[in-house]
Each structure stands twice: as structure tokens, then as C-alpha cells.
């Protein structure tokens, strides 16, 4: 068991290293000159050298690589070309903004989706609730999240005028951490949050429904019913056992959220990490783009690790078979 945990952690570390290296190489072998946007053409050679040195762009590729990892090891992502500030200072508030959108969206989407999935799964096989439920969920799953966002904007912002169309608050609002505790903030949060919920709902509904349908025919369900328990409680018995796959689904989903959030952040001009990644790529602000990408990859690796460890805790047989088969 301990051997499995150690090897699993080492493996995660290795994956992070490889992904980071791939990114490093990709950013340096691209056709355009990374210094083009940084250094003016007419700049004297000395000033140019000084600037390049400041951004760690001197020496061979290998030197740069070693220096980059040396800095990463102490948590230094370098300085943004565009903002002329340490990347960390730029990204930190954006990470908070993204998580404020991601975590409630994910949890509410999972909760509402699982609830509806239980209803659909327990409805009459081949009946109207089942057919309509599955059909609507499948179409909702096939709707790209930026179209969900555009539709929400069209209805609730342009047509009804209930919610603001973009941003996180008005310019005159409270600054710092105070800004998260105002009505204005919640007012701005509502539509993007709804888009994230709609992004997660159908998948959870379908997962839960399959689980409930599968367990409906199990013997213990008949036993529960034979005890004379009311039908909704019987449904709960079937649903509860389908929750386990859902719980382990949550971790990888969190990582995918932050990635999938990108288009929603763009539609609603929500100042998060995903939106900044797109802006950094179009501005050729490579230190920032690189850092944002690595953070997202790190999140995926960590959540996969968390999911695996939770699963191992819940079902020790997993560690055994994985230790045997690698």
C-alpha cells in the first residue's frame, strides 16, 4: 500500500516535469522571435542585452532551461512582458476569481444534476420523463459553453435587463478582498455561475441516471421494497450507491472546470486565469501564458492524484491490482 502511494506520487511529479518541459520547448522553438515585442528595433545593443538578461533570455537553450527550472523550484515564474510585473502578482487574484466561479458552479451542477438524474433514473422505463430527460440532457451536453453564455446574455442581460453583461463589478466599487462581499459582485457573478452550472449539469444527470438504472434491478433493492419502505426512500437507496463514482468524478472535473471555464470567462469578461491565458497568448506575453498553462496542468495532475488516493481509500483492492499491473 505504501509502495503504491510513493510510486503514485513520484509518477505525478514526473508528469509535471515532462509537461513543463514540453511547454518550455514549445515556447522557445516557435517561428516568431520572443523578444520582438519586448525589445524595440532601434534600441542600443547594450540596453537590449540588459533587457534580455532581465527576462532570462540569454545563453543557450540549455542554460535557459536550467535557469527556468531553478526559478520554478523556488516558485518564481518570472516577469510578465505585458504588465512588467512578477507573473505571480498578476495571476494570484485571477486564480481567486476563477475559483469563485469554478467551485460553486461545479458543486451546484453536480448536486442539481445528480438530483435530476435520480428522478430520471427512477422514472418508468421508456416513459415520457425518461425519454425527455435523456434527450434534453444530451442536447445540453452537446451545447458549447460559449453558446450557453451567449444565450444567457441575450435573454437575461439584453432582453430582460436583469443582470450586467460583463465584468466583476463597477469601477467605483470596493477594492481588495472587500469587493467579494458586495451585492454588486453577486449580481455580476450570477450569469457566469449559471453558465458553469449548466456546463456540469447534463453530465452528472446522465451519470447518475445510468447508476440508478443499473442498481434498480439489484436484489437488495427488492429487499428494501419488501420491507415496506416508501418508494422515494427505495429510490434513495439506489441513488446513494451511485454517488461513489460521482464523488471520484469531482476531482478530475475540478481541473477540467478551470480549463473549460476559459470560454465562459471570455464571454462574460470575467477576470480569471483562463481569460488571461487567451489574452497572454494573443499579446505574446510568454512568461504569463506559460505560467497560466503550467498551473492548469498542475491542477489536473493533483486532482488525478487526489481522485486516485480517495478511490484507494474507499476501495483498497484498487491499490493491489494497480501495484501488480503497474
Amino acid at each position, binding site marked *: 500500500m505504501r509502495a503504491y502511494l510513493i510510486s503514485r506520487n513520484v509518477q505525478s511529479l514526473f508528469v509535471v516535469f515532462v*509537461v513543463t518541459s*514540453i511547454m518550455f520547448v514549445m515556447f522557445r522553438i516557435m517561428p516568431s522571435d520572443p523578444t520582438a515585442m519586448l525589445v524595440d528595433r532601434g534600441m542600443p545593443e547594450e540596453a537590449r542585452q540588459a533587457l534580455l538578461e532581465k527576462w532570462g533570455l540569454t545563453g543557450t537553450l540549455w542554460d535557459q532551461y536550467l535557469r527556468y527550472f531553478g526559478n520554478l523550484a523556488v516558485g518564481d515564474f518570472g516577469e510578465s512582458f505585458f504588465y512588467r510585473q512578477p507573473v505571480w502578482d498578476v495571476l494570484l487574484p485571477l486564480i481567486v476569481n476563477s475559483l469563485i466561479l469554478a467551485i460553486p458552479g461545479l458543486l451546484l451542477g453536480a448536486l442539481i444534476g445528480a438530483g435530476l438524474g435520480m428522478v430520471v433514473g427512477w422514472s418508468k422505463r421508456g416513459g415520457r420523463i425518461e425519454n425527455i430527460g435523456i434527450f434534453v440532457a444530451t442536447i445540453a451536453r*452537446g451545447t458549447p459553453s460559449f*453558446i450557453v453564455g451567449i444565450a444567457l446574455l441575450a435573454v437575461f442581460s*439584453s432582453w430582460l435587463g436583469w443582470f450586467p453583461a460583463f465584468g466583476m463589478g463597477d469601477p467605483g466599487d470596493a477594492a481588495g478582498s472587500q469587493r467579494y462581499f458586495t451585492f454588486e459582485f453577486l449580481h455580476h457573478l450570477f450569469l457566469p455561475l449559471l453558465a458553469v452550472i449548466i456546463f456540469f449539469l447534463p453530465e452528472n444527470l446522465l451519470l447518475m441516471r445510468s447508476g440508478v438504472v443499473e442498481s434498480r434491478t439489484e436484489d437488495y433493492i427488492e429487499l428494501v421494497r419488501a420491507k415496506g419502505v416508501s418508494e422515494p426512500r427505495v429510490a434513495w437507496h439506489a441513488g446513494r450507491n451511485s454517488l461513489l463514482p460521482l464523488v471520484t468524478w469531482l476531482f478530475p472535473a475540478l481541473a477540467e472546470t*478551470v480549463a473549460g471555464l*476559459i470560454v465562459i470567462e471570455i464571454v462574460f469578461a470575467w477576470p480569471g486565469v483562463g481569460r488571461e491565458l487567451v489574452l497572454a497568448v494573443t499579446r505574446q506575453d510568454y512568461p504569463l501564458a506559460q505560467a497560466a*498553462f503550467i498551473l492548469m496542468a498542475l491542477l489536473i495532475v493533483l486532482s488525478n492524484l487526489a481522485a486516485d488516493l480517495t478511490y484507494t481509500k474507499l476501495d483498497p483492492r484498487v491499490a493491489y491490482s494497480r501495484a501488480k499491473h503497474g
Partner: protein
Amino acid sequence: MAKTPTLTNKAANVGLRHRMLNPVAMLWQDGSARIGMIVFFLFAVVAIFAPYLAPYPPFESSLSEAGRLRRLEPPSIDHWLGTTTFGHDVFSQLIMGFRLAFVVGVVAALAVGFVSTLIGIISGYFGGVIDDLLMRLTDVALSIPTLPFAIVAVGLLGPSIENIILVITVLFWRNGARIIRSTVLTEREKIYVKWARTAGASHFHIIINHILPNVFRIVFLWITMSVAFAILTEASLSFLGLGDPTAVSWGQMLNTAFVSGSLRTAWWWVAPPSIALVVLISSIYLIGRGYEELNNPRLRRR
């Protein structure tokens, strides 16, 4: 002796053709999959004949008789779905968007299908060190965040259809390889494969004649789903402004409407590409859903 191989080859070919049609015939039994396949087919027809159906070149600015640009006009007889802020005909752009969606979707899905089948079969069939190496590679690939990678890669390589297809292939082979590998693992243990090996059949012969036909259903499903993933990824990239600027795509139409601030006013410009994307991607998901219902015995009605 010389005749026997041709005979078995012929039999194998007939069997293979039968299996190729098999998934479609099988999916036809499921109501939602049938709807999905019909919609997909109709969209494909529009995509094939797109240049003949579009009344105007997609990037031609329409001028009124007085020589003024016909900007943001609502639907009329001349322009069935109105015009964009640059005076382009929305209907023509929508029709040409069918073609781009299918080119990206089908080419990328076939490439994804090829790579995942190759890696899945090699990994599952040979096992041992090869399997270990390929699966470690898959683990690393699975840790790459999908859309962020696509954004960075297309941003660095330059926005073109070829690069978008390349990036989609690099991203989506990984899950397919896993799924196909696990199917191969069970096929490999079948008794007739062992007999074929004992009888002196080469690995290549066994893979082509025994393994491949039996994993074909899974490969077919994975390619079908990859069409949806590819279309979705292309649409997202184009919506973010990283699409091929020389071709019309639905995502790019939405991006232009979004960037020019016409989202609130020009419904005739925003709604058609949105609906087309939702209907096409959903039709593929309906096919995948039907497949799952038919193949999971515990979900089947009794």
C-alpha cells in the same frame, strides 16, 4: 495449397465488410441514435454541396444601389439571414461553415482514430515493456489540459486549419488509445488467437484478421465521438479568435459578432451558427448515447 489463402482472404473480406456496416445497422435500432444519424447525414449533404448552395461568396461585402455598405441588415429577400457588420451575407457564411465543420471534424477524427487504434493495438497486443512505455506516455498526455493546450499550441504555430487539425489529433488520441487497448487485452486472450499463433500465423496476420475486426465497433464509436470533440474544439478556438482567418467557421462568425459588439442587436447573425453547432454536436452525442444503451446490458430494458 495455393488456393486456400485467397479463399480465406475473401471470406475475411466479406466478414470485414459485414462488420463495417454492422455498427450502423445496430445503431439504427435505437430511436435517439437514429435521429442522430439522420441529422448528421443531412448536415453532411449540405457540407458537400455548400459551394452550390451559398448565394454569395462568404466574404463579399454587399453594397446597396446607392453604393453604400449594407451593414447589419435584418433578414430580407436578398439576404435570407441578413448581413454582418461588414456587409457579408450571413446565410452564405452559415452554409460554408457546414463545410469547414465537416472537413475539420472528419479529417481530425480519422487521424485520431488511426493514432489511437495503432497505439491501443500495439500496447494491448504486445504487452510487456512496450505496453508500459506507451501507457506512461498516455498518462503524461492525459495530464495536458485540453483547451489551454490547444490555445497555446495554435497561438504559437499560427492559426490555420492544418494546425488546428494537428493539435486536435495530438490531444484526443490519448483517451481512445486507452479504451482500445483494454478491448484488445480481452480479445488477445481468446482461444482462437492462441490457436492461430500456435498454427504459425504472424503477429501482423493475427492483428489484421482477428484483433482489428473485433475491436472495430469500439474504434468506430471513438471516431464518431472524435468528430464531435474536433468540431467543438475548432469552434471554441475560432470563438476565442484563434481560428483560420481565411475560412468561414461557425465559431469564427460568433467571434466576429462578439468582438464587433453585435451580440445584443444582430440575432439573425448570432442565432444561426449557434443552432447549427448545437444540432450537429448533439446529433453525434445522441449516436454515442444510443451505442451505450445498446451495449451496456444492465441499461437495457427488460
